[in-house]
């Protein structure tokens, strides 16, 4: 069993589709039943098991049946068994979703901040263009009473969305004081969203993420896939605020896996090229000047990027 690594177990026959857990020094340091089931009991079980020796936990989980000849404790028992015998491998520090379909055109949506009305208008506007898919780079939520409604609306759209830093805080139950609360269902929705999208545009590999909070995640490794791109954008160039280090960035680009790197933390639009890599900062969906989204495409030679504006 790998130490201090996050494991994700896909369950069978019980309400929560996933169990996430971490082990360190033989102790269960974290366990979370994600995506369904009784949230109250699940959180209690997580609190009670946290810090206990794995062997002892496994003894507690035996012979408990709920339905489908299994139960959440039984599924956790199976998860821990598989982690122990190597059948279950640790998850990456940040979740990557791979959009495997090669694309020719992608709509880019920046921070929504819980503005359901903005998302609805953008989805409608984008649907009138010849766009194959939409990516939203976060934050989805904000200081808004409509966070829940936005997430509910988003679930019905063909928009691939990653967690922004506020979204991640909500998913962890650590959102800043004064922000509207969310139901556990909505928090789990955010929790299950990836942190980074991987895609193919016009034969080039691309990634889309929010920003530097990924580096603060436990288990983030500088050698994980796409960690180099994240480090270069976040740490070296400070999200392209420091252009003096561009020569160094250009020297590192040949080691990148991605040639198109999208991010949204700066909350302003920008486009830079260093060597073979294109870097695009995706601005917020709503500004004082109106609503906007990005159109990313390719013509077989170079990528094309345009900011599309809607008037209020």
């Amino acid at each position, binding site marked *: 069993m790998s130490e201090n690594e996050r494991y994700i177990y896909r369950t069978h026959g019980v309400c929560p589709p996933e169990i996430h857990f971490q082990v360190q020094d033989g102790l269960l340091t974290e366990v979370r039943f994600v995506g369904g089931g009784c949230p109250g009991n699940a959180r209690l079980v997580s609190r009670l098991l946290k810090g206990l020796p794995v062997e002892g936990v496994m003894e507690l989980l035996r012979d408990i049946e709920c339905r489908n000849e299994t139960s959440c404790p039984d599924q956790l028992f199976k998860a821990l068994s598989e982690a122990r015998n190597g059948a279950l491998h640790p998850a990456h520090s940040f979740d990557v979703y791979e959009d495997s379909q090669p694309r020719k055109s992608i709509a880019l949506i920046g921070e929504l901040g819980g503005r359901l009305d903005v998302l609805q208008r953008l989805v409608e506007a984008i649907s009138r263009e010849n766009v194959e898919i939409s990516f939203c780079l976060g934050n989805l939520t904000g200081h808004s009473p409509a966070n829940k409604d936005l997430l509910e609306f988003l679930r019905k759209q063909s928009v691939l969305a990653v967690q922004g830093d506020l979204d991640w805080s909500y998913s962890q139950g650590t959102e800043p004081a004064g922000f509207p609360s969310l139901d556990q269902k909505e928090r789990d929705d955010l929790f299950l969203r990836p942190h980074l999208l991987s895609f193919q545009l016009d034969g080039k590999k691309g990634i889309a993420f929010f920003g530097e909070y990924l*580096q603060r995640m436990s288990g983030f490794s*500088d050698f994980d896939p796409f960690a180099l791109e994240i480090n*270069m954008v976040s*740490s070296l160039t400070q999200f392209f605020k420091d252009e003096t280090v561009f020569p*160094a960035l250009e*020297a*590192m680009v040949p080691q990148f896996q991605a040639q198109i790197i999208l991010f949204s933390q700066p909350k302003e639009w920008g486009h830079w090229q260093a060597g073979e890599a294109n870097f695009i900062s995706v601005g917020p969906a709503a500004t004082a000047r109106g609503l906007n989204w990005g159109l990313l495409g390719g013509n077989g030679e170079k990528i094309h990027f345009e900011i599309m504006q809607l008037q209020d």
Partner: protein
Amino acid sequence: MAESVRVLPQNIQNMMDVREWDMRTREGIQRFRELRAKSLPSVALDNELVYEAIIPGQEDLSAEIRRRYEEKNRE
């Protein structure tokens, strides 16, 4: 770059402690920024950025290291 330091004559190697920073890591990037470097490869001597965007020749690098070593030992 690191190799060009490793192949320096032993008497030069004995004058210094060498630390190699990996630019793929956050620690390496932080050191790069602390030195206010702009391009790669970069060589710093005694926390001072001395060579940037070039790999110094053996003679040049040896002479600079020796100069600094002798200056420090004179003090």
